[in-house]
């Protein structure tokens, strides 16, 4: 912590997106189909050692508020999808985390938008 400024990022050249080094968990692109039956939509990415873990991680990372019903995890060259039977245990639990939603907290009108 010697300098108040960020040092320039000079030693790395642009690498191919998603290309992991031997010791890193590979990157997966996550697609989730929402509750209202529209097609799978890209929601973001994450790291996982394999496809199963990618789907489990996606459940924990991207459906914390009960957004999805079906997950695709896609590495550079393959597609993996969760099975629709998983629907119950995998998604219902998030329904009762009401404190996730801002309206759970009563903020007086006087203090302005928050």
């Amino acid at each position, binding site marked *: *912590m010697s300098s108040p400024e960020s040092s320039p990022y000079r030693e790395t050249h642009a*690498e191919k*997106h998603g290309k992991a080094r031997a010791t890193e968990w590979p990157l997966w692109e996550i697609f989730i189909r929402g509750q209202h039956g529209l097609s799978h939509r890209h929601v973001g990415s994450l790291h996982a050692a394999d496809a199963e873990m990618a789907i489990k991680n996606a459940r924990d990372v991207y459906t914390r508020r009960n957004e999805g019903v079906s997950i695709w995890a896609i590495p550079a060259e393959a597609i993996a999808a969760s099975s629709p039977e998983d629907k119950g245990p995998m998604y219902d639990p998030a329904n009762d985390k009401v*404190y996730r939603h801002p309206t759970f907290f009563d903020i007086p009108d006087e*203090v302005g938008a928050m």
Partner: protein
Amino acid sequence: MYAQMIKSTGKGVKSLDEMDPQERAFQERIDAGGKIEPKDWMPEGYRKNLIRQIGQHAHSEIVGQLPEGNWITRAPTLERKAILLAKVQDEAGHGLYLYCAAETLGVTRDQMTRDLLSGKMKYSSIFNYPTLTWADMGAVGWLVDGAAIMNQVPLQRTSYGPYARAMVRICKEESFHQRQGYDIMMKMAKGTPAQRKMAQDALNRFWYPSLMMFGPSDKESVHSAQSMAWKIKMNTNDELRQKFVDQTVPQAEYLGLTVPDEHLKWNEEKGGYDFSEPDWEEFFDVLKGNGPCNTERLEARNKAWDNGRWVREGLLAHAAKKRIAKLAAE
């Protein structure tokens, strides 16, 4: 917001006439409100700057778990414990989204992590302050998240597509954070004398560090001008700081708490508050590593990373074995 003191590499903002055709097309696209996507051509300075800025933002989310994580095991009710845990979990998620956005620029999360752990890359100064009482959980949510939101909302329109999309998701999730903080402050400010004292003390300690989050004035900075031309910075530091003060002072008044600034005064002419600058010397000290908690924060992150190595390697080794077994079976 969580990215402070990001300096661009340029010597000033070039005019369109000075640019080569490729760069000119790039700039015109940004000027027209278009988005830059990972595979598009981009100036090297744009890429490097974004890696630093998004990386610093991501690191801030990750280190930012620690001051609040400090109180999860001491939260006073089951509901408060759940809310705080959910919030700190969100910060891990936001760090994750941001790292992924930076990864589209050709740098890996592990590389960025190593640079955080070695002290080469920075995180926001605010997380080097200690959380000493339960009221600090209120103050952090109310002030620190409040300040962060000021910056993150406009960044949803930033020119780099993956960054803008990460911001959209973050802002959507973050809306409950500030409110839960204010909710704690209301309980404390209307509670017992001891609770009121805690609430005022928390405001006293977090007010100036929150103002520092926006960074020093950058009105004259060519670096900021370049970042603004590239639309990876949307407002000047002073604009955002002013907006934050104007929004926060009435909220403090509602709580019956006193903002620790004797020069704080409504200025009718500018339609905003006049207020004292934070101690910028302290700010630079904190950035240099001399904040109250710099050592502990980096130590905690290093320890987590080192202790986790065997887990990351173990699960990776198992995945490789599974892959080989599957190939052999086919």
